[in-house]
């Protein structure tokens, strides 16, 4: 009895010790608390521009506003003139290509294809005035548009197809007196609406972020830390942190989550170890385009259908998104999209105008990296698929002229003639056009970085670590527990277990049968003795 009591006590103590070791109390994440406190205090402007006598006048042209800015900020225009927002190109070393100057003049996209020959319209998103063709003077500081980024009155808006000039309705004096730190709408005016409408291009950058909840974006949520774009995308000398891999190619001046959150943010060693191979975005952005749909496909080959000789468009009755436009073709839109996943080391290559096509679908850009690349991590990516016009004889993609003010200027959006549009566009960029065209499939890769979900909604382990339907099913050349296994070993292992079970069952049955028989023999022997 004493022994039983003692052993019960010993076992109880043992279990209590184990529970004590296994129990992990929830610890406060001090790093995260510090960040929250840091960003809770919003920056206050140092000066009130409405009080400056220099700005107490009626500005007739936007250039007058720029001159007024430069009067005081007399060196800043140089920084702007050195920036890629102004130059629309960047010089970088590209593997396999050498030193390349790449930007909107020579890199295509998978939406409206390219800016060349369409500058009058595309320059709505250029931080300058008067880019109507390829003769824009990139040295003239008077044409720097300070207001588009620094207007804090929400008054400023660029005009449609006005070569980057503000809309005629804008009260320039009001804008000039309200300038300050860029707000989210300043960035969003271009980055939310690029590609011809809200959320068309990125999928994770759209107008819903201006007033949203934590479920959509923990950083920009009005009921959360309520951050603006430039809180993360900070600038030094007007060079803004962050890379858009539709046009960028080198791993420089990138903005990553660990700038604030460090590479070990989890309070859990197993999770922290993932950060060496898995980008934060992969788990923390389970879906994008959470509020409004984004374009996933764009088929230029469908463009040009007319009703009674006139262009038309069709819209989705549920979302209101355009599914067909005579000038652009057909579109597929999606909401709450699960990203595709790719290895990415921060470097990208691009199709540059004039490049020979060597594989179809043509990769408008491709993200470099693989499982064996020590600098690569798994990233969530929006892949935008479509088709574009292609010169069969010259084996290259075509830069078509899309926009013109009037009919008869070869622009596809007015004349609906691909031959004329291709000829005019290619002539402008100095490339040949054979007159023999067709449409080929194209793909473009957009790493997803925004719409970070609350941590409770981050991907669970099983979303990737499972045999069937793993989110990372498409990535190979590495072993992932739960997803991967050696099929031969599993088969042999199961056979071994089945053989062992069958063996012991048969052996046991044999013993039972034998013991019955042996007993019968014994009984018979006893009987004969009697």
């Amino acid at each position: 009895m004493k022994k039983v009591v003692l052993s019960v006590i010993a076992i109880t103590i043992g279990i209590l010790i184990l529970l004590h070791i296994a129990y992990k109390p929830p610890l406060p994440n001090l790093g995260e608390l510090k960040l929250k406190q840091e960003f809770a205090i919003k920056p206050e402007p140092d000066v009130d521009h409405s009080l400056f006598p220099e700005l107490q006048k009626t500005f007739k042209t936007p250039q007058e506003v720029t001159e007024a800015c430069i009067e005081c900020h007399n060196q800043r225009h140089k920084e702007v003139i050195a920036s890629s927002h102004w130059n629309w190109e960047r010089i970088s070393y590209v593997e396999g290509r050498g030193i390349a100057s790449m930007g909107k003049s020579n890199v295509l996209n998978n939406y409206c294809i390219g800016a060349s020959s369409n500058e009058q319209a595309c320059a709505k998103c250029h931080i300058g005035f008067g880019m109507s063709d390829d003769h824009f003077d990139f040295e003239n500081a008077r044409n720097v548009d300070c207001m588009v980024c620094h207007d804090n009155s929400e008054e400023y808006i660029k005009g449609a197809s006005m070569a980057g000039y503000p809309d005629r309705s804008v009260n320039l004096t009001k804008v000039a007196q309200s300038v300050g730190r860029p707000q989210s709408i300043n960035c969003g005016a271009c980055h939310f609406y690029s590609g011809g409408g809200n959320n068309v291009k990125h999928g994770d950058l759209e107008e819903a972020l201006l007033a949203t909840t934590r479920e959509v974006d923990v950083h920009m949520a009005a009921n959360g830390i309520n951050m603006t774009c430039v809180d993360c995308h900070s600038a030094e000398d007007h060079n803004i942190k962050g890379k858009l891999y539709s046009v960028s190619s080198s791993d420089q001046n990138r903005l990553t989550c660990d700038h604030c959150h460090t590479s070990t943010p989890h309070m859990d060693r197993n999770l922290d170890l993932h950060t060496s191979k898995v980008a934060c975005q992969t788990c923390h952005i389970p879906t994008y385009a959470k509020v409004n749909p984004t374009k996933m496909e764009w088929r230029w080959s469908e463009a040009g259908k007319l009703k009674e000789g006139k262009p038309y468009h069709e819209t989705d009755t549920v979302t209101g998104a355009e599914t067909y436009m005579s000038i652009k073709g057909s579109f597929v839109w999606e909401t709450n999209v699960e990203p595709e996943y790719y290895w990415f080391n921060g470097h990208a290559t691009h199709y540059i105008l004039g490049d020979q096509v060597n594989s179809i679908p043509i990769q408008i850009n491709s993200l470099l990296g693989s499982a064996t690349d020590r600098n690569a991590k798994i990233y969530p990516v929006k892949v935008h698929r479509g088709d574009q016009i292609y010169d069969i004889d010259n084996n290259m993609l075509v830069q078509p002229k899309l926009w013109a003010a009037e009919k008869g200027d070869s622009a596809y959006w007015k004349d609906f003639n691909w031959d004329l549009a291709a000829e005019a566009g290619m002539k402008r960029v100095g490339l040949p056009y054979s007159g023999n065209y067709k449409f080929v499939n194209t793909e473009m890769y957009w790493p997803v970085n925004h719409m970070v979900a609350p941590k409770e909604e981050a991907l669970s382990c099983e979303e990737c670590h499972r045999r069937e339907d793993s989110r990372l099913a498409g990535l190979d050349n590495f072993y992932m527990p739960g997803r991967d296994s050696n099929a031969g070993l599993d088969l042999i292992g199961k056979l071994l277990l089945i053989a062992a079970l069958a063996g012991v069952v048969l052996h046991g049955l044999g013993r039972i049968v034998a013991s019955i028989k042996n007993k019968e023999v014994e009984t018979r022997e006893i009987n004969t003795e009697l």
Partner: protein
Amino acid sequence: MQKVYIYKGFERFWHWSQAALIFFLALTGFEVHGSFSLFGYEQAVESHRFAAWMLLTLIAFSIFWHFTTGEWKQYIPTFSKLQAQIRYYTLGIFKGEPHPTRKSVRNKLNPLQALTYLGFKLVMAPLLVITGLVYMYYRSIDANDMVIVSDIPLNVIAFLHTLGAYLILMFAIIHIYMTTTGETPTSNIKAMLTGYENLEEDEPEENLYESEFSDIPKK
């Protein structure tokens, strides 16, 4: 026949806690392997690691125990009666023949058992422990400069660890069945639970051996 104290306290604690840990590790391990879903992947991984550390601690104590008590000698293989033992399990047992070897405090294990357990201790357990530790500390080269074991591909480590798991499960199935081949079907399990088993009288020299442990109680 005589009731003999054959399995000491630590031995029984070691045996049963190791058995429980092995089954728990198999359960969580095959979930991590992706064979089924039970606890949830995260819980399975954490439990597997925790149980692994408990098992390692237990193994450390049991090695100490085996060497300080001299019990390790039980596993020295003898081949003289090995064939007779194999013949017994394949034929004799069905004919109701007696065991070819006699169990005693000094010879707890028959020759086949000694050989099997030696294999368990020298092959299966080290295979699982070593591959398990490498798996646990497997890191790849990265910007964070973590410990590197990238020379061995993870799929090789996982293959060996899983192989060990299948072998140990197979061992467990046969081991559990073999406990029923004692004096009565339950006498071996009872002995491992209580420590006492009915054994034939020890020979004098074995009594000498036993007298070295004069503190062992006898019933």
